[in-house]
């Protein structure tokens, strides 16, 4: 316990000192961006027509899906926290520090990160849904339970993920992991519903939920602790060597013919890194992208909320029909979701940028590589959205091709905007993600409604945006600072 408190105190001191150097971003920019997002969301929520209340089962399924995404999103980071081979804590592996201390250090870090995200999201959601941000103790208790459950599930999933690269019995491991994580996702989903004032209709619902979530949390924590003590020493090295070479080689070959010189080399490296180091985030992004497309499909197939466009109408009328606009909106959201891998990649590459500096890569080449990266990783997005729309007959036969072109145009615009912002705040990937997504999605949604205006904006604005992107990349190359 004493050693745990020593490590946690050192970690906290390190983080507090980091925060003291980021006051502008933490006290001005982040509240500004988050506040504006919140105000916009609350405005939309207050003006939105009251939709039919979904059934408990449907709501639970959706929130369980969100919780499973949340669990997946923390797997990669959680693995680096548990197997701290690239962190300062790695030295403590050679000191007389017991395994439980290593695990609980990682657990405390995980709790802090999950609490930060879920705390903000659910405080905002609660005030949006209930129109009153009443912070009573019961609400905070349920929130804490959700945070503990999510953090422990992420840690368990991370242990299994790393171990799966070493074990022969992958199937058994996968089955075991799924058997424990599925209830965690379901219970997490139920806790989410509970937090946004969606009480269960069956008697004693909350009591059962409390018992279930607490049991699942303690079970996950206990099993994680046992598995960690068995696997740690063997998996420590595998955690550092997780790589995927075959797909990465394909990525390298694919880029060889398309771009020349430095941009091509950088792009190949970026795609290799994406496949090798961000696998959990790539899965998450793909999952979310699929979720957008599935939502569109379900919306078009199961409801009449979006009236179908008639075949006889002209092309200019069709472009503003609800089902086609919905398809375009999904194209924008899917593109933004996939292109959101860019700020994570840039932050990961920062310590290694000395190479670009040493070999004389220009700001333009650096920026172009990142811009093309955003475009390539998000390329499936317009196709997925278009396919989802087309497969439901929401797109009239005479608008199949124009719809595809519109989706491709939106992909190009959104991915280019995200790529252009790659070096706006490279050392703060979380904040960069919020800024990039807010900006690109806002422009994308506007253009999905008014594409002729979007074309004009693009023609006149893109050179300035590109110029700014190049200048930021050049500045960053020269100074190494944000």
């Amino acid at each position, binding site marked *: 316990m*004493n*050693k745990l408190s*020593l*490590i946690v105190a*050192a*970690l906290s*001191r*390190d983080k507090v*000192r*980091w925060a003291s150097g980021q006051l502008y971003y933490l006290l001005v920019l982040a509240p500004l961006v988050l506040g504006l997002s919140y105000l916009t969301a609350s405005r939309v929520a207050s003006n939105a027509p009251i939709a039919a209340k979904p059934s408990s089962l449907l709501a639970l399924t959706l929130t369980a899906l969100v919780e499973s995404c949340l669990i997946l999103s923390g797997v990669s980071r959680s693995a680096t926290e548990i197997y701290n081979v*690239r*962190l*300062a804590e*790695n*030295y*403590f*592996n*050679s*000191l*007389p*520090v*017991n395994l439980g201390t290593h695990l609980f250090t990682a657990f405390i870090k995980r709790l802090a990160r999950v609490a930060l995200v879920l705390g903000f999201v659910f405080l905002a959601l609660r005030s949006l849904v209930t129109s009153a941000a009443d912070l009573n103790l019961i609400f905070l208790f349920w929130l804490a339970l959700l945070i503990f459950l999510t953090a422990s599930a992420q840690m368990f999933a991370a242990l299994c993920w790393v171990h799966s690269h070493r074990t022969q019995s992958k199937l058994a491991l996968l089955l075991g992991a799924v058997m424990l994580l599925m209830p965690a996702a379901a219970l997490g989903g139920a806790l989410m519903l509970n937090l946004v004032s969606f009480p269960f209709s069956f008697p004693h619902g909350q009591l059962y939920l409390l018992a279930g979530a607490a049991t699942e949390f303690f079970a996950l924590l206990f099993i994680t602790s046992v598995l960690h003590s068995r696997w740690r*020493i*063997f998996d*420590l*090295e595998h955690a550092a*060597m997780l790589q995927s070479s075959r797909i990465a080689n394909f990525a390298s070959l694919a880029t060889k013919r398309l771009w020349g010189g430095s941009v091509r080399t950088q792009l190949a490296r970026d795609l290799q890194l994406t496949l090798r180091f961000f696998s959990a985030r790539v899965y998450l992004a793909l999952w979310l992208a699929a979720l957008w497309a599935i939502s569109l499909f379900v919306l078009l197939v199961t409801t009449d909320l979006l009236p179908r466009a008639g075949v006889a109408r002209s092309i200019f009328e069709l472009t503003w029909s609800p089902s086609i606009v919905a398809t375009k909106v999904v194209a924008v959201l899917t593109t933004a979701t996939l292109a959101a891998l860019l700020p994570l990649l840039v932050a990961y590459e920062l310590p290694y940028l000395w190479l670009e500096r040493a070999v004389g890569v220009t700001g333009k080449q650096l920026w172009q590589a990142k811009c093309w990266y955003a475009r390539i990783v998000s390329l499936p997005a317009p196709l997925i959205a278009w396919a989802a729309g087309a497969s439901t007959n929401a797109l009239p036969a005479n608008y199949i091709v124009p719809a595809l072109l519109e989706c491709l145009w939106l992909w190009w615009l959104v991915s280019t905007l995200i790529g252009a912002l790659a070096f706006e705040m490279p050392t703060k990937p979380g904040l960069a993600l919020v800024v990039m997504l807010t900006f690109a999605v806002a422009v994308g949604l506007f253009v999905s409604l008014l594409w002729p205006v979007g074309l004009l904006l693009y023609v006149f604005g893109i050179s300035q945006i590109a110029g700014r992107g190049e200048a930021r990349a050049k500045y960053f190359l020269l100074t190494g600072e944000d």
Partner: protein
Amino acid sequence: MSENSIEIVEATKLYGKLVAVDAVSLQIKRGEVYALVGANGAGKSSLMRAIVGLAQLDAGRISICGHDTKKNLLRAKRHTGYLPEELLFYERLTGKEYLRLVAGLKEADTMQVEDEIEFYELKTVEDKWIGGYSLGMRKKLGLAAAMTGRPQVLVLDEPLNGLDVEMMRKLRGRIKREQERGCTLLVSSHVMDFVERTSNRVGIMRAGRLVAEGTPEELRNQAGLSDAPFEDVFFGLASGKEFSLKSDK
């Protein structure tokens, strides 16, 4: 208790199909300085990482002060101080804070931190963030962390990288003093002059195997190079054939 502080029996470490350490056996007596030399990738760091419990052997066993690292790793670690080749620190802790943290984790007397700061000439930067330290300062901090708690076994992986000549000389004296108090040292280095002057025995590794072992004098005789620089002795034994600057010309 055995008179050997470090006992390694048939230690084998694999990375996939690559054999990093190939059935290495060696015993290092209490108070002995043992130098491991070899080309990059010869397996020195892998062996050292296995000794301090950062890597798991695929075969064989290691014991530190009589404690088997597989069965009693925590006890073995209590006797060990380690300087890793790659130094990772909390960039926003000061040097003094970091050493106090290490002392706390080793359950050592924190008063020793002041002595180490004094010895490694870190007094002027002790209250500055480690993020602003030069390579040499980081190395000195790593050495201070390894020696905090006066461990019975010191495993130093490339301790000279980044140190100036004066500090190298000072470190040689420190190693002598640690040896005199009964500490066992396992050191890897590419500086052959340092190796020859500091160590009681030298082990030469090549492709994961221990290809030659003995006192510096014995190795000289083995290579048949009694007057040549120790570097030539190393080349001769490591490559399996005689090599000298003269023959190179």
